[in-house]
């Protein structure tokens, strides 16, 4: 079970080679193998969304993908998406509107919001709420998160 398997992938734009166990999840590999601890582990069974990362541009649950499945693929985490600046307006809106409290769900929320806005430039509040329903937040009650995303959608349309 602990046999090492070699994988090669791109993480946040950098080429990575590593040996992983067959059973290691992608999020555990990112967190413990690469020390990218911004992706969080909340339930380990695909419900809470705290481990959301991008695999080949699509958001996935890092706990439901094995690290070996990412072999040859491209992975982006909150660290990469944050450092590239692509989330800057969302981050600023979340900050100003206090659309986060403990911050544990926040990286997943940001990546999910970004995915929503990529496909729907003018989502209604209901559509925002629906898109976020795969990501749990226990602190905010969601209202502020919806406000922040709604504001960014408006700002991006006006750009």
């Amino acid at each position, binding site marked *: *079970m*602990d046999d090492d398997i070699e994988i090669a992938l791109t993480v946040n734009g950098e080429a990575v080679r590593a040996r992983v*166990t067959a*059973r*290691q999840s992608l999020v555990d590999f990112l*967190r*413990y193998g690469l*020390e*990218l*601890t*911004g*992706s*969080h*582990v*909340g*339930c*380990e*069974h695909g*419900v*809470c969304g*705290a481990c959301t990362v991008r695999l080949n541009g699509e958001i996935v649950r890092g706990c439901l993908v094995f690290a070996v499945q990412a072999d040859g693929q491209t992975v982006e*985490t*909150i*660290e990469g998406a*944050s*450092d590239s600046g692509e989330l800057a307006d969302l*981050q600023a809106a*979340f*900050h*100003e*509107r*206090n659309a*986060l*409290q*403990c*911050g*544990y*769900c*926040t*990286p997943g929320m*940001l990546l999910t919001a970004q995915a929503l806005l990529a496909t729907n430039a003018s989502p209604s*509040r*209901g559509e*925002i*709420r*629906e898109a*976020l*329903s795969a*990501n*749990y*937040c*226990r*602190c*905010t*009650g*969601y*209202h*502020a*998160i*919806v406000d922040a995303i709604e504001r960014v959608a408006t700002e991006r349309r006006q750009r």
Partner: protein
Amino acid sequence: MSDPLHPILDRPNSYIGRSVPRPNARRLLAGRGRYVDDITLPRMLHVAFARSPYAHARIVTIDSTAAATLPGVARVVAGAELAEVCTPWVGVLSHLEGLKSAPQHALAVDKATWQGEPVVAVLAATRAQAEDAAAAIEIEWDELAPVADAATALDATTPVIHDSLGDNLAWQRTFEAGEVDAAFDGADAVVEQTFEVGRHTGVTLEPRAILAAYEASEEQLTVYHSHQAPHMMQNLFALHLGLEEHNVRVVCADVGGSFGIKVHTYPDEMAVVALAKLTGRPVKFIADRLESFSTDIHARDHTVTARMAVARDGTIRAIEIDDLTGIGPYSVYPRTSGIEANQVVNLIGAPYGNTNYRARARVVFQNKTPMCQYRAVGHPIAVAVTEGLVDMAAAAIAMDPAELRRRNLLADDAYPAQAATGLRFERLSHHASLDKLLEMMGYDALRAEQASLRDKGIHRGIGLASFVELTNPSAMFYGVGGARISAQDGCTIRLDAKGSIICATGVTEQGQGTEAIIAQVAATAVGVPIEKVRVVTGDTDTVPYGGGTWASRGAGIGGEATVQAGKALREQILQVAGTILQAAPDTLDIRAGAVVDAADGRERVGLDEIARVAYFRADTLPKDFQSELVATRHYVPKQFPFAFTNGIQASYVEVDTETGAVRLLKHWAVEDCGTVINPQLVDEQVRGGVVQGIGAALFEHCVYDETGQLLTATMADYLVPMAFEMPDIEVAHMVSMTEDSELGAKGAGEAGTAGAPAAVLNAINDALRPLGAEVWAQPATPERILTALGKIGR
């Protein structure tokens, strides 16, 4: 507007009352949080636990031979061995007279008393290897009859969980005031109901997490802990491991949600620190979600039979309640599991002037996950019962429920006031809050809309819930009962060499915005721009002694300590400035980071220059002058044991009578927490709290079968509110400051959770009442609603 009792509110360039964004939130937004599981120490081991699969069972033998040989395994430790390192504890407090509990060990010794109790610890190189080995431990069990149902826990035929205690009654409280029987006998109407509030739990998105390291050469224990009360844990770790308290350092950095879940002592966490001491290697434990559901404290689980007497004019004449709650097999250490029932007794009827009150609360042991304090402790139950009775009484005498409240709420000019139970209220604003709420929601128009939709077969309901909330607790909450839980808190502020300030506070941050509000208060009290403030929290080595953040105490108590420390530092800085400027310190002030003439605001010297002279050119100061540029102050509420706040909420719902589904259309909250330091942060505390309360009202339930097996142990089975089903929540404020502090702030962290379940249940019943149906059991699931409607079998 000069206020002699609250001069801090008159400071120039004040940040108090401004929605300043949280300084520490940017880091979290960038994915640079530092939660316990993000920390790795050299030679670190991971621990996994073999846990009891039974609710109640004797341990016959433990065979770890196979487990010990698995890859990566460093050590396997069972209860008896660990008990030599870590002494057991008993969760009682002397002011809850008669409360009893049994000694609890870090790992079960002899028998397990709930499904999920840790029995054997396995240390291995990785978490996966530790889990593999934990699964390979062979335990032979002698299954015992479980005590699953609180209702029969006291029956003579029910087994006693702890022989040494004699029975399963942990605690009982009775209370009586006024002429209860006479009031019921003479009432125009009496309403009666049994209210159920199901077991639920906090579901912090970051599970419980702890990393402990022990350095034997210095007898030093360092613990990184996802927790709310670092000094409390410092004391307990030292006490139970036989260490000197000053040699124990507890660090609570980023905490991924707490809500009261992370303010207790957990046996598996005590095991981790004991294992670190035993092995001399760092040990990390991160609960998985199954462990969270079966071992994080649960809350509520109350069945309350209650009745209310009311006169034809709407006056509440009397209330009587009988509360039964099952708390699991132990009273949780050190806060005990009696507090929630005690709060139910204390808070029932508290917003109203009723003087005839009789209550009984019984707290019983059972073989389920231990139950203890979770956000709003007791309030959601007391409010659901009181406000449910109020709505039933209004229906019984055909009076509008808002009007019945108006006729009974304590008058806004009647303070200080005292409840039937003896709670003392310094100043509340029930009537102003009610008026504000009705205005916000457009109550009359909403009633008209409800009536017209009813004619079309659409069943909407409006629910109101008034309440008081206990905040800023003094030592009367825990300390008086013997717990070493600090009610006071401290703040140390230092002027740095470049003229900025560093502020260390005993209250902790779990996302509420503690660091933001402490920065706002410190910046205001000293007189510097908020960009020049850095706040340090959560490290017993560096912050003043304090209680941490719980019971809505951070702003009111931590904030006031910061006011006083900031003012003291300002005076010290002005002493130095006066010496440099040859001016009397009382003619000077500090504004926007510079020393100015108090009279006209003319800038005299920057704080960076004061610091430069004091720290690097003390030779230029008089020989008989010593600058002091750090100040510490502490604060504890003195005049009142608790700073009670009040609030009122309303819920507007639509019930689908075919499916039993409840759609939340809108929620309103008016909150009076005294001085509002940061309006946006208070609003967000209220909103988050409301949604946790809605979760309790509609979704969240720890369901057990009759053998004490938890059936809702995944996030797919245990439902928490999701974005799509939550309403927008409108929040407004009243301000009744406490005169116990200069800041005047009371707490706001639990009000949302206190009031929301009652508002939602009342709204559902308002929708159902014309159909002859009622639902008073939480969560009000579609199944319960359809059953009440007679559409599915009972």
